[in-house]
């Protein structure tokens, strides 16, 4: 692992940021970061210290933030030492099986008002945009921006589309959209500048389900399924 050692920065007086600036294989490094977070949490939970000293372990695209719990006496220096130790002993695990999700999408029409914009920008027909979007395999790098909103990796480069000049005041929950090089699904209604190409009826965030409030988790893989297309 040593040829690609991450940089460590302080986020504040109780949190560290571990990051890779450039890496050729983003999903692979993300899997490594997620495992690092899990193993660190486990290694810190000892019989004499059953309370995990970390309050949050938060992956970002190509990075991981570790926040100390309010009641721990652990210093960031000690946490860094644990982190380096854990990183050195981490081996690539190719046997890891990601959870797979199939997300049915109604593309175009009133649910996908920007499908034609994306098609025009790509120089493709709306049908071809749908085929390419639904043909992709996507990795959930992390969640953020909204509860349950997944940062997905794997959008076909031909579908990369700049955000709208005039952001919409309300993008409905379930909207499937493209913003720059990313695609994503909005768990809740929100203002936003992404190009909306479709809609899914799945619930991506349910605050009433404490065991599993978000449908997607970092490390999951997803595929969009064409439920219907209005072109």
């Amino acid at each position, binding site marked *: 692992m040593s040829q690609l050692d991450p940089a460590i920065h*302080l986020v504040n*007086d109780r949190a560290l*940021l571990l990051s890779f600036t450039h890496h050729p294989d983003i999903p692979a490094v993300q899997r490594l970061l997620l495992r690092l977070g899990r193993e660190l949490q486990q290694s810190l939970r000892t019989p004499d210290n059953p309370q995990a000293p970390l309050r949050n372990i938060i992956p970002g695209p190509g990075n991981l*933030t570790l926040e100390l719990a309010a009641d721990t006496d652990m210093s960031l220096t000690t946490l860094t030492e644990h982190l380096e130790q854990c990183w050195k002993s981490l081996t690539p695990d190719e046997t890891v099986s990601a959870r797979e999700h199939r997300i049915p999408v109604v593309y175009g029409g009133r649910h996908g008002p920007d499908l034609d914009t994306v098609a025009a920008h790509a120089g493709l027909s709306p049908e071809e945009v749908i085929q390419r979007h639904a043909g992709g395999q996507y990795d959930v790098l992390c969640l953020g921006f909204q509860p349950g909103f997944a940062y997905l990796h794997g959008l076909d480069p031909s579908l990369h589309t700049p955000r709208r000049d005039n952001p919409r005041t309300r993008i409905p929950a379930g909207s499937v959209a493209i913003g720059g090089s990313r695609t994503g699904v909005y768990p*809740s209604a929100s203002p936003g500048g992404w190009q909306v190409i479709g809609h899914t009826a799945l619930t991506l965030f349910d*605050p009433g389900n404490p065991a599993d409030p978000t449908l997607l988790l970092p490390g999951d893989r997803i595929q969009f399924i064409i439920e219907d297309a209005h072109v």
Partner: protein
Amino acid sequence: MFEVLRCGPVTTIQDQGRHGMRHLGISQCGTLDPVASRQANLLLGNAADAAVLEVLHPPLLLACHVDCDIALVGDDMGAHLLDQHRHPLPGGRLEPGRVHSVRGGQLLCLPGRRHPGNYSVLGVAGGFDVPLVLGSRSTDLSNRFGGLQGRPLQSGDRLYVDHDADSGRRLRQGIRPIAPNGQLRAIPGPEFEQFNRQSRLDVWQTRWTVGRQSNRVGLRLGNTPLRSEDTGYMSSSAVLPGVVQVPHNGYPVLLGNDAQTTGGYPRIISVISADLWKMAYLTPGARVRFEQVSIDQARAIHRQWQQYWARLEMIPPSGEAS
């Protein structure tokens, strides 16, 4: 039970926040002044994370329909009790940092004062009874869940008290309030070095003004734009309350409890966790300075707070309310 007769915007039910869920994109929310909330709960014999009422924009007028003990911590807001005819009760002033007994039929009035920094927490023995959502009673206003139906209070709302959770213990001697000083101690943020030399000086030397657009998500700081030299693409990563992000326009945003969990703007400094409570009093128009401390100083300050709470929790309570 309390009935809301009148309240300002953004009056919410909060506890110590929703923790350990940022990897799911779930924000912390929770009381803006965790010190005041914990003090109020300690006075009332409640668990530290019992739900309190947070008053950011007075006035607040509550009708009390049952005998109960309350405690106000923070700004005094001219708080007092009224009888059922809305006449002030003799000796009815509600001094912050003390337990007060309220009788059913009386009214609780927080008129507030016209100056920046109005902020108070109102606790009740047993805590306000709203459902636990994802492990917390805090209101998430952005995503509309928690607290009272995920929204701010409005006239006509009924607030129930969790009488079963009332321990019967009270700290009758009171707790001396701690006044915020408009000085937030901070350390350089992860992207501090990306800012130009002048901006790295300005951030510490400017007396910042809190802008009108400020809310629980973040405080917008006016007067001096800050410039980063590296304007290249920056990957998103986790942000936390107290982080100062600088968007492209150069005007810093000090992130609050309701901030989203990820951000993509350079972070020039981060307020230390022990000083986050002071942000509650930074309402629009307030002035604030940042003071640089070392990570070791921040750790020492964190320890002092742990000792402060340990001392307070050792004070023997005084049994049943009168």
